[in-house]
């Protein structure tokens, strides 16, 4: 037997179903964001860890020029090393055929028998090369898919200056290539960088590495940290041209993936709480009002003999049920959305499998916040209402007291008709409620405005990168730094309009205990084809006596212009430089450091050398130029700006950046939910007044004015507040989205705010329309007979 109060509860819920659904939706979306983001981050983190584990990814990588096999045994004997293996690694160039640019590739050795001990590969298709085969390869699956290649196809490859025709026998994924970028480039592009594996004997023959290796892979014993081992390895292998051992953390693929996950994690830490907070605030306001509207019934229930606790519990159940159903729906949808996003990321990161994890904390947080907001809203009012004596409720309700309110309308008496005075007096009579609605709508608008700003920030990033900063058509990289003569040669080629040299050297930058392993880019003092810009997007000239850092790099190192920095160059004679920070540049991709190319050359004792060049070309002569570049043995890679641009757009649309679209949708729904609720509540509270006006002979439009005028004023007040809130919220969201990998520039555009305002106005008009329909259906007789 259901208690009568519970039946009342069910019917009350049914009566306010529209509004209840709107509240549940808003709270549900807050919880959804929370659960989705934490689930996604957990899943990606766990999947990466499991993938690395299962395929035995090394903890330390030790590249050398060429070392005999016996040297590796000495490293393997170190007590901190759990496992060690050597391999051969080479640069190659794939010729995709007539009229196309050559593609850079990296080739790696597989042991002559079986699978690698460390850095194993996941064979997605086909088989491994036969033991003694000289021309069979396993190709990176991502590249194969991007180029439409499959087992059975052949590739023309230049390795160590000799051309080979290689047969694809299998396709593989590898944990060390989750994210593939051509050396010197930031943005991954499956189609423009290849990795393939061959049996060791074949590769040793191609690169003249018989009995030798050029990379050692190490895993650490439990509890050991990589740094000490790195130092040992560098010392031990110094005679063999050690380029500097590095830890897994500095493996480019892992660094990128970590950065993306870190970025997601930080968005998960900032964005959902904002959404949830706004949803909770709305829930508080709405539940308070729903309970307020039940005032008389509460008095009556008490008159029947129900205790204050019973009545209070009854209404708490109402609001908690709404909040709970929203939280449950949000959790379920959040789990689903988290899964969907994880599957989406699986493709993006090329994980062969996913380890789904759910963070119970996110549910607890989501539920707790919803419950607290709902009960706080309900309790505040229930407590007030319970102080009423039943007798008060049995009498016709006293009209709300307007006599002690500051009479805003009275001040403008002369210009206002009575309906306008009603609107103004009500707003000034209940400033708390009005403020609640204003802040709620403003918060919704701020959410839309800041999400839109972030969305257009992505577009600004693309625009700045490829229209403001990089003005070249293509970038050519050389196998090794070439003298000035090579650049002049390039400039004389048919179709080349202009050239600009660049020099990229690997380096470790240190400031005290802070360090960063990256590159130094040498550029002309005032680069024309690849500009460096300051925070105001103005071109920056490089000083000869210092180093210019990208903003995120300056943050990582904790330095400002004027501070001294220690720079360990990892190429050539490996100088260690002490340089002052000359300037901080605004960059969008990566965390580069810049030096004037002449100064860099002098520091390296290799003046006037370039490791690559930027070109502007005559597009009519493009194909001849490609052919000429392919025939230049010193050219290891050519990339077109158009491809890089497409890759960046792709990165932003498929990577973590895609979350912004989900956010935009959620922001729009929340905005609408808030506005609609404000309109619904106003209508519910005023239906009797509206009926009275209609009875007196006011037309629907005239009566509607009293109701919708209030909504209009609240909306108008919310807009400027929303602009202010949006400004602050944007920084919070951008902070969450930006990573070392890419930064989102914040550019406040009138159009974004216009769109957000428009969204609020549309939400207000649609809500007004829905309430208007209720107004036209208002049963005058019933509305008048009901006591408030």
């Amino acid at each position, binding site marked *: 037997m259901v208690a009568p109060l519970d039946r009342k509860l069910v019917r009350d819920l049914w009566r306010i179903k529209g509004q209840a659904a709107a509240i549940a939706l808003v709270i549900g979306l807050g919880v959804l964001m929370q659960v989705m983001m934490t689930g996604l981050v957990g899943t990606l983190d766990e999947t990466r860890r499991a993938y690395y584990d299962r395929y035995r990814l090394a903890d330390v990588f030790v590249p050398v020029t060429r070392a005999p096999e016996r040297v590796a045994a000495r490293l393997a004997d170190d007590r901190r090393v759990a496992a060690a293996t050597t391999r051969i690694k080479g640069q190659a160039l794939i010729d995709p055929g007539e009229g196309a640019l050559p593609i850079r590739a990296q080739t790696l050795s597989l042991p002559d028998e079986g699978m690698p001990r460390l850095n194993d590969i996941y064979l997605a298709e086909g088989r491994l090369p036969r033991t003694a085969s000289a021309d069979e390869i396993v190709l990176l699956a991502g590249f194969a898919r991007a180029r439409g290649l499959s087992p059975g196809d052949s590739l023309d490859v230049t390795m160590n200056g000799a051309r080979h025709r290689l047969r694809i026998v299998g396709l593989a994924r590898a944990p060390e290539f989750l994210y593939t970028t051509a050396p010197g480039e930031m943005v991954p592009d499956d189609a423009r960088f290849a990795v393939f594996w061959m049996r060791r004997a074949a590769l040793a023959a191609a690169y003249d590495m018989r009995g030798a290796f050029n990379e050692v892979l190490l895993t650490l014993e439990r509890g050991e940290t990589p740094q000490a081992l790195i130092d040992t390895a560098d010392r031990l292998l110094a005679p063999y041209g050690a380029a500097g051992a590095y830890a897994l953390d500095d493996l480019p693929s892992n660094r990128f993936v970590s950065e993306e996950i870190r970025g997601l994690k930080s968005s998960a830490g900032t964005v959902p709480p904002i959404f949830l907070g706004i949803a909770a605030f709305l829930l508080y306001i709405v539940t308070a009002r729903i309970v307020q509207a039940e005032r008389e019934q509460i008095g009556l229930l008490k008159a029947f003999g129900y205790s204050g606790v019973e009545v209070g519990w009854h209404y708490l159940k109402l609001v908690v049920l709404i909040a709970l159903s929203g939280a449950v729906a949000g959790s379920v949808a959040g789990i689903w959305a988290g899964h969907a996003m994880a599957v989406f990321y699986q493709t993006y990161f090329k994980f062969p499998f996913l380890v789904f994890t759910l963070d119970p904390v996110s549910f607890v947080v989501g539920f707790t916040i919803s419950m607290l907001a709902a009960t706080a809203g309900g309790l505040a009012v229930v407590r007030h209402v319970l102080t009423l004596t039943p007798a008060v409720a049995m009498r*016709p309700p*006293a*009209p*709300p*007291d*307007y*006599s002690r309110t500051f009479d805003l309308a009275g001040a403008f008496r002369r210009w206002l*008709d*009575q*309906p306008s*005075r*009603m609107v103004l*007096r*009500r707003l000034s*009579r209940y400033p708390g409620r009005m403020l609640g609605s204003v802040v709620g709508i403003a918060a919704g608008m701020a959410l839309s405005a800041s999400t839109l700003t972030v969305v257009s920030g992505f577009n600004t990033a693309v625009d700045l990168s490829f229209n403001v900063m990089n003005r070249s058509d293509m970038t050519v990289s050389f196998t090794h730094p070439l003298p000035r003569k090579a650049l002049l040669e390039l400039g004389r080629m048919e179709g080349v309009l202009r050239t600009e040299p660049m020099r990229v050297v690997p380096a470790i930058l240190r400031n005290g205990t802070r360090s960063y392993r990256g590159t130094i880019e040498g550029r002309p003092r005032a680069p024309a084809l690849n500009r460096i810009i300051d925070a105001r997007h103005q071109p920056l000239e490089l000083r000869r006596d210092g180093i210019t850092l990208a903003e995120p790099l300056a943050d990582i190192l904790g330095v400002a212009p004027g501070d001294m920095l220690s720079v360990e160059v990892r190429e050539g004679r490996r100088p260690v430089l002490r340089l002052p920070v000359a300037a901080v540049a605004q960059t969008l991709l990566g965390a580069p450091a810049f030096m004037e190319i002449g100064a860099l050359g002098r520091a390296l004792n290799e003046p006037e050398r370039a490791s690559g060049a930027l070109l502007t070309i005559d597009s009519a002569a493009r194909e001849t130029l490609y052919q000429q570049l392919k025939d230049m043995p010193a050219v290891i890679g050519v990339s077109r700006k158009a491809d890089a641009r497409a890759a960046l757009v792709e990165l932003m649309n498929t990577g973590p950046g895609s979350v912004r679209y989900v956010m935009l949708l959620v922001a729009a729904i929340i905005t609408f939910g808030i506005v609609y609720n404000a309109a619904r509540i106003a209508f519910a509270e005023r239906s*009797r*007044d509206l*009926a*009275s*006006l*209609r*009875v*007196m*002979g*006011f*037309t*629907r439009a*005239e009566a509607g004015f009293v109701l919708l005028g209030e909504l209009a004023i609240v909306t108008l007040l919310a807009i400027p507040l929303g602009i202010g809130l949006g400004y602050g919220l944007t920084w919070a969201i951008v902070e969450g989205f930006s990573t070392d990998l890419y930064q989102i520039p914040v550019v406040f555009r009138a159009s974004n705010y216009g769109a957000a305002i428009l969204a609020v106005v549309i939400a207000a008009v649609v809500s007004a329309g829905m309430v208007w329909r209720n107004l036209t259906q208002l049963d*005058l*007789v019933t509305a*008048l007979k009901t*006591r408030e």
Partner: protein
Amino acid sequence: MQNKDRPTPAPIFTVSSLSKVYGTGPAAVHALRGLDLTLPEGELVVLLGPSGSGKSTLLNIIGGLDRASSGRVMFKDRDLTAMTEAQLTRYRRDHVGFVFQFYNLMPSLTAYENVELVTEIAADPMAPDEALALVGLEQRSHHYPSELSGGEQQRVAIARAVAKQPTVLFCDEPTGALDSTTGRAVLKVLSDVNKRLGTTVLIVTHAAATAAMADRVIHFADGDIREIVHNDAPLGAAEIEW
């Protein structure tokens, strides 16, 4: 009270075969069952009967708040049953005043402003002050409803209803929520409005004593008129036994 023949003024309402059914099928409730009635202008009429007898339904239909299921209602020479929603609004605005049991004042407007609410849109209103003087509340005109007693609120409601100088004033249980002294005062105001302005006043009530002040008493039962009684010597409101 006696039923006598006397000359009848021109009718203000002519109701013929009026029916009102709520709901359909076996659950249908017949609130009015083919009612016929002619009401002359200028009288104070009391509609008496137990709750559910149809008196409020009739009031709502001839007041333009509700629609008949069948039959016809003529207001002077105009057919209310054929009017559009907009025409009914116009009718209420120009010709009809309403007074309800729970006053239905706008809490955010003062007594004066509540009256002004109507005078702003009426065709030929009296001054709000005049209307308030009529109900004896000229001294309280700048008070909000929350500062007025129940009887005072009801008198403001009457002032608001008569300020537009309506042709007819409908009162649905106007004293239902009031004690006897305040109730009498309210009835006196209604009677004054009838006498001094010549407004036709229709009062729905189940308090039989009110009948003593009416020119005509219509007794309702089961959705139809049981009896119409003319009263040649209506009592003043002060003399009514409560």
